[in-house]
């Protein structure tokens, strides 16, 4: 037999076949969870979607007939995420600007970048513990304890590293020639940053920030003892300083209830949360891929 021919029984070829199959098997297992989770949420959650769901308050568990809606939780998630964004985006973008534009590779920026990575690794529940100690237990905010505002602050701690990182990295990608061009015609540093570099990096920063917000919207651990939960409509500004519901905490609370009606509400909330988060993710992915393509041409 020709020695150049492929020999099936050669241990090398058997081994290669085996490991290739193993790798394919790993990939199959890896995509199963997403398919299963999304399918169940579409089926079980999708079945619960009614107009009332969006308008009603949830009924307290026990009344098994009708669980009501998730309006307060939905609004609460929007409010808390907005508060977190209002805090984290300016701080993060500003901090990122300093790292990328002013301090470049100096020891200070090394230290802060290290800190950013460490902060990103702090367990999300610790952010809740911290805000609990700082704001909730001290009643420092106009005497209120659990509040939507406290929840927003806890979430902002989780968003901060993401925002700083994307800003820092987005700005680092802007070619230096562009900066020199602007500085070279006598523009000040801040004009250069605000008018030239930041707009150039806007797309990548915005994508990163939007993904960060989507991630925060699903966070639960920092909220369960900062914002707590509420069954009641959010009607006015002062409600910020009271307990506030959110989709995430609603899912947590109602999943653990022994009543079917509440469980269904948890599935419905998951449906809304997951669909929104996946939509944001898929769009920003397409957007990023598109941006990259146009850049290359």
């Amino acid at each position, binding site marked *: 037999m020709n020695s150049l021919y492929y020999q099936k029984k050669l241990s090398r070829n058997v081994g290669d076949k085996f490991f290739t199959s193993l790798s394919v098997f790993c990939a199959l297992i890896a995509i199963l*969870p*997403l*398919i299963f989770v999304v399918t169940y949420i579409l089926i079980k959650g999708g079945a619960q979607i009614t107009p009332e769901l969006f308008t009603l308050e949830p009924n307290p568990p026990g009344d098994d007939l009708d669980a009501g809606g998730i309006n307060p939780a939905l609004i609460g998630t929007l409010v808390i995420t907005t508060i977190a964004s209002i805090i984290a985006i300016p701080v993060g973008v*500003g901090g990122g600007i300093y790292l990328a534009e002013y301090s470049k590779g100096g020891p200070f920026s090394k230290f802060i970048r290290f800190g*950013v990575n460490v902060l990103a690794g702090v367990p*999300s529940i610790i952010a809740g513990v911290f805000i609990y100690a700082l704001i909730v237990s001290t009643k420092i905010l106009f005497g209120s304890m659990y509040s939507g505002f406290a929840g927003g602050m806890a979430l902002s701690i989780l968003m901060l590293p993401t925002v700083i990182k994307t800003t820092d990295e987005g700005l680092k990608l802007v070619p230096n020639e562009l900066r020199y061009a602007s500085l070279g015609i006598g523009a000040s540093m801040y004009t250069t940053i605000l008018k030239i570099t930041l707009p150039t990096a806007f797309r990548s920063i915005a994508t990163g920030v939007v993904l960060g917000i989507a991630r925060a919207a699903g966070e639960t651990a920092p909220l369960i003892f900062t914002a707590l939960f509420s069954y009641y409509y959010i009607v006015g500004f002062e409600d910020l300083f009271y307990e506030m519901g959110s989709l995430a905490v609603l899912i947590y609370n109602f999943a653990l209830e022994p009543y079917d009606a509440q469980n269904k509400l948890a599935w419905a909330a998951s449906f809304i949360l997951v669909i929104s*988060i996946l939509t944001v993710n898929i769009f920003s992915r397409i957007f990023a891929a598109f941006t990259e393509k146009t850049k290359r041409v």
Partner: protein
Amino acid sequence: MEEKLILFKNRKRFGIEKNIDIIFKNTTLVLSSLVAIVLFGIILVVFFQSFESFSRYGLNFLVTSEWNPVKDEYGAFTAIYGTLVTSLLSLLITIPLGVGTAIFITEDFVPKFVREIVGSFVELLAAIPSVVLGLWAIFVMEPFFREFFVFLHKFFGWIPLFSSEPAGRNSLLAIIILVVMLLPIVTSIARDSLNQVPKKLRNASYGIGASRWKTIFSVILPAALSGIMAGVLLALGRAMGETMAVTMIIGNSNVFSWSLLSPGYTISSMLANQFGEADGSQVSSLFYAAFVLMILSLVVNIFAQWLVKKFSLKY
């Protein structure tokens, strides 16, 4: 000449503009310092809040498993053990799965668009909130594995890890849901590290007649090892701090058991469960537990960063 000068009213940088420049720079400086302030703030606050409990129980807190608010006795061993066991075991399962998937994505067994789809699926999995995975675990995963656990106990009950009757919610379920959560982290970091291995190394290996998997095992994986290790450590940090899905499925019991089929506890699930309703010295003990969790994840994280720095850009 003079007319021309008038056209450029701002030729001279006015004091005010210079000041804006300085103010802008300093504002961003303060904002970036906030990261450090928040980080130290967290460490200090958690430390001082745990001080009362620390001075009372000292290091005994770490090795006793009595948690009794009525008798005011606190020891976090069960939760610490649970944290370590669930995170390490889930990592042990995730590493081969994630690296195998990363190899699938970076090699060319199948056409590129299939690999890209697999890659995006895994990344989208990372976007699913942990509380939703918890819900799914309670209502879908737990019933699915129930029979299997009974089988496991029946035939492998002699192994301490499976020695108890399977409970409805238990540590093994927590481990499985953790695998689902860690998979995207390990896969995407392993994929990036594999992609960074220079093509020329693969050429070199194929060029002297190595087969595909010989090349992967002897050349590509070793070259990507430090990156993969860093990813594994980040995943470990994540696993130790992961709260919601674990809290919902682990059963939350402070009774210590070697068996993974019994309900268990982790530090973060203990915090999620008890923080809202705790008072008195229990609060301080919870802060102490939080402090332990924070130190664990800090150490793992810093080690991961060190690894990345030490081994990056070798070629």
